[in-house]
């Protein structure tokens, strides 16, 4: 739990990108404790670059980034921002149980030479229970369904006792039963006061969980408001179009350049 009432995330005209390319710029965003923020936007709009920037995985190229009240570079207690990556990062080259994966979330909390103690094991068990996988703690992760694997990754982040969970596309490619269980898990976490920043394409599955919606397009924020305001925004901007954010934001892309040996590529509308 946050000790001060400083915002969890405080961005002032922040820019993020990779070595020679700025992907996201001019972002002002403040997330406070208790908020559940959905970050929407089409592919390539910079959502992932932004959240990866918060986590220190992409370079900060300008502006001010404060996490939990301190500049990002001075944040040493990294697990206070709990990262839940996309599922494909759960490598399946070797066997590993749910408990073994979740135990990784405890590692930053003890020095390298110290073996896991009783507290660590208790926290791991509680984190697995919190995502509803207690009866599968000793199963191999590779044998679980896609949605169950996402929940393993959530439990791993929870084991680090984060103030804020940052999730990258938690519901993408997950079957219906798992999506319900996943949404239930997120609802429980929200009810317990867990703050979350959720990158997603599918607002439907999370509609009753999120308290605020932020949209990105082409590296900038272009909407920030409550779910009802978002509905009004959609109605105003895309009459007759569907309910999905992707449906009306068409990124302008240059036509692909191809040589004589390139197969013709599909151009996004």
């Amino acid at each position, binding site marked *: 739990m946050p000790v001060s009432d400083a915002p969890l995330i405080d961005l002032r005209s922040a820019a993020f990108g990779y070595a020679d390319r700025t992907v996201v710029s001019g972002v002002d965003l403040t997330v406070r404790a208790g908020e559940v923020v959905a970050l929407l936007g089409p592919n390539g709009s910079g959502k992932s670059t932004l959240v990866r920037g918060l986590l220190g*995985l992409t370079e900060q190229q300008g502006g001010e980034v404060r996490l939990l009240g301190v500049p990002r570079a001075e944040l040493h207690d990294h697990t206070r921002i709990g990262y839940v990556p996309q599922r494909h990062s759960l490598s399946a080259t070797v066997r590993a149980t749910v408990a073994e994966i979740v135990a*990784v979330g405890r590692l930053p909390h003890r020095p390298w030479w110290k073996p896991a103690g009783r507290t660590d094991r208790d926290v791991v068990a509680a984190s697995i229970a919190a995502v509803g996988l207690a009866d599968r703690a000793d199963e191999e992760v590779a044998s679980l369904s896609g949605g169950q694997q996402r929940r393993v990754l959530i439990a791993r982040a929870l084991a680090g006792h984060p103030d804020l969970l940052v999730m990258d596309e938690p519901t993408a490619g997950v079957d219906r*039963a798992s999506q319900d269980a996943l949404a239930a898990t997120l609802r429980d976490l929200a009810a317990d006061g867990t703050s979350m920043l959720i990158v997603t394409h599918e607002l439907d599955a999370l509609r009753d969980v999120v308290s605020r919606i932020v949209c990105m397009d082409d590296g900038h924020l272009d909407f920030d408001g409550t779910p009802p305001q978002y509905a009004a925004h959609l109605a105003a901007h895309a009459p007759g179009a569907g309910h999905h954010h992707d449906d009306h934001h068409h990124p302008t892309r240059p036509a692909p350049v191809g040589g004589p040996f390139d197969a013709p590529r599909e151009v996004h509308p």
Partner: protein
Amino acid sequence: MSEMLALDFMRQAFVAALLAGIAAPLVGTFLVQRRMSLIGDGMGHVALAGVAVGILTGSQPVLTALVAAVLAGVAIELIRASGRTSGDVALAVMFYGGIALGVVLIARSSASNPSNLTAYLFGAILTTSGGDLALLAALTVVVLVVTTVLRQRFFAVANDEEYARSAGLPVLAYNLVLAVLTAVTVVVSMRIVGLLLISALMIVPNATAQLLARSFGASVRWAVLVGVVSSVGGVAVSYEAGTPSGGTIVLIAIGLFLTVTVVTGLVGRARRAAHRRAERHDHEHGPRCGHDAVEHDDHVDYLHDGHRHAAHEGHYDEHGHHHAPEHDRPQEAGTR
């Protein structure tokens, strides 16, 4: 066996085999996990250049090989961490440069003969000296202690490097330590297994362990067991049959892998036939699913329309009717 053990060089060969059988699979686990199964091979190539320098300068080849392999290991990690697309080619240049230099230097040295080169490349039981053995034992202890203490951290970094980075773990440092341990293992194994076959003793026992284990911890223990059986057994067979030890060890390791593949395949099929999946339903059982939980041996079943459902892998198993003995089905052996 007692005849073999009466020979000094055979006792030394068995100890060297035991050390290699322990060290190689311990390090190999993390290489398999990082999809770098062939990196030990490359380090072996570079180590040959180190061996050659040792022979030429009259110093201990084990020490010069260790220096060459450690330098190669650190270079590999730094090249990988730089993320350059040309990194792959840089590694190829380094590996082939190493083995080419080694072959040329060893051929030029007057103190050596062609069989010497073959022994380094493919392993020989006659080559381990008492002085080497003390050094190899010390290096094996280093590998054993470091992989035990840092096992969870190596696992974390290999399993999901990006998460490890976001959680503030020093990813590059752990990768460098692992690279140095791999180099140490190459040197520990080079006498018995040979520089061209070392990678096999790191990787093949781990492939076998993946078939036998159900958790990461168990797979490491299985891999060491399979590694020791292969290396010690290989040395014994090599003595009896007069074959090069490295090739013999690797063939035994592969034989074990194939046998285990067939047996676990058959057992898995029998288990699947013996256990029944419950019907699919659109929710997961848990404290709030509304179904009663009942204790069943070592686990909890959920009563679903009179059936007992038990979590198994990603699905539920049918554990039969509840309170209805006339319909009760025999307990399946393969379920849990």
